[in-house]
């Protein structure tokens, strides 16, 4: 990391949620809820009427944004997110973050993932040891 100051922006990336990414995350995390892979099940219970990505998948990607920027996962002291809106399969989300405080050797980073309609699917903060 070069010098970190309030306002430093993390390099963004995009990710499309797909059935393949959802099944891989279900298997890896142990969260086998069919809401995340079965269209027939999702049609009855999903807030969008369709299959949506795991919130924890979005959180994992938001954390990846932070570790990639920090250069070392050991520097991440804390990650915390709110799941604000569902992320439907087929949609691309943009992950971003910005440094909001630097104090006592810790950077506080605001992180988010934005859907194609501009609404956030996750919002949160990470605390990174500098």
């Amino acid at each position: 990391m070069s010098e970190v100051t309030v306002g430093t922006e993390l390099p963004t990336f995009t990710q499309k949620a797909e059935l393949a990414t959802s099944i891989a995350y279900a298997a890896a995390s142990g969260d086998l809820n069919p809401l995340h892979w079965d269209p027939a099940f999702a049609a009855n219970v999903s807030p969008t009427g369709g299959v949506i990505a795991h919130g924890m998948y979005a959180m994992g990607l938001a954390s990846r944004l932070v570790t990639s920027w920090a250069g070392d996962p050991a520097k991440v002291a804390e990650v915390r997110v709110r799941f604000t809106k569902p992320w439907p399969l087929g949609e691309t989300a943009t992950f971003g973050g910005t440094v909001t405080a630097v104090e006592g050797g810790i950077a506080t980073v605001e992180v988010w993932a934005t859907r194609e309609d501009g609404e956030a699917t996750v919002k949160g903060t990470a605390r990174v040891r500098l």
Partner: protein
Amino acid sequence: MALNRERIGVSYPPYRYEVSREKIREYASALGESDPRYYSDGDDCIAPPTFAACATVIKGGASLFADPDLGAHVVLVHGEQGFEFGDRPLQPGDVLTCTPRIADIVYKGRNELLTLELDCRHADGSLAVRGTGTIVFLGSAPEQAA
């Protein structure tokens, strides 16, 4: 039926979670991670921070459903999740002892927000990770709380 608020503060029996190299790989791959340490065969292998989900989210949630006095139901969504980490990332061979605890249950409109804390410790007692999850049970808060 509303959740039993007398269960606030209750801790459930600890369970064991053993971190394995192959599970770290599988998890890192599912997130498209490129850090070679997540895929290493050597002593430098570490887990991505949110790998902690494997030890906490579903296993911890299962404690709630195993509690006959709580009244957990399946009409729910995940509201918030946090992880605080100990001094080092998880590594293959770490054996965690994870204790779930109901930290709070509050009403928000007709929904109930249950905060579940998961305290995961290494064999020497040091903190590995502390998970804090908010589970939103939809529609079960009592009418008068709305």
